[in-house]
């Protein structure tokens, strides 16, 4: 009986170490990905896959723009539409090089990051259905 207990503990420890190792690798990959794309997360309440989607979308669009000419409105529009389509309404996006903000956002729907010298605020708010009574 004791042998079985020890075996269970050994397996449990082994699984925990595997999970920990996987987490560490994922964090390292995320860090490398951010470094490579020149992204810095300033504030965040958002799952990693959504964050990465925002970074990738912003990076692709910035790369497609002529250098020295930032079309911040286009970047904001694209990110907003992308997230509205994929994750439901209502997302809001502010893009610029100098702005302050104070917002109320839905749980898990907020990220503020910089990419190159551009700052991006992307957040979600709850949508109340229109009362047609």
């Amino acid at each position, binding site marked *: 009986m004791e042998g079985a207990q020890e075996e269970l503990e050994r397996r449990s420890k082994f699984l925990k170490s595997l999970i920990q190792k996987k987490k560490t690798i994922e964090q390292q990959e995320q860090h490398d990905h951010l470094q490579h794309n020149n992204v810095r997360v300033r504030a965040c309440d958002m799952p990693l896959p959504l964050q990465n989607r925002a970074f990738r979308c912003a990076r692709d669009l910035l790369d497609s723009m002529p250098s020295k000419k930032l079309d911040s409105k286009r970047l904001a529009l694209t990110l907003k539409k992308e997230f509205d389509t994929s994750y439901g309404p209502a997302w809001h996006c502010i893009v610029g090089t100098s702005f302050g903000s104070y*917002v109320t956002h839905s749980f898990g729907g907020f990220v503020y990051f910089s990419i190159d010298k551009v700052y991006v605020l992307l957040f979600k*708010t709850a949508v109340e259905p229109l009362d047609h009574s």
Partner: protein
Amino acid sequence: MLEGKAVIGETDMLQTMQQDATDLASKALDFFDVTEAIEIARFIKKEFDRMHGPGWQCM
């Protein structure tokens, strides 16, 4: 009180609320330095939440 006229760029808001917004912006600039953007935004947002119900955003 801060001198100078507020210029409204684009709007979809009642005239009275527009007036509240410009008044609050002016008040915020009396309270805070122009570089304290987050504090200014926080002040206007909180006041609008109080005056006109929750859910306002300010940049």
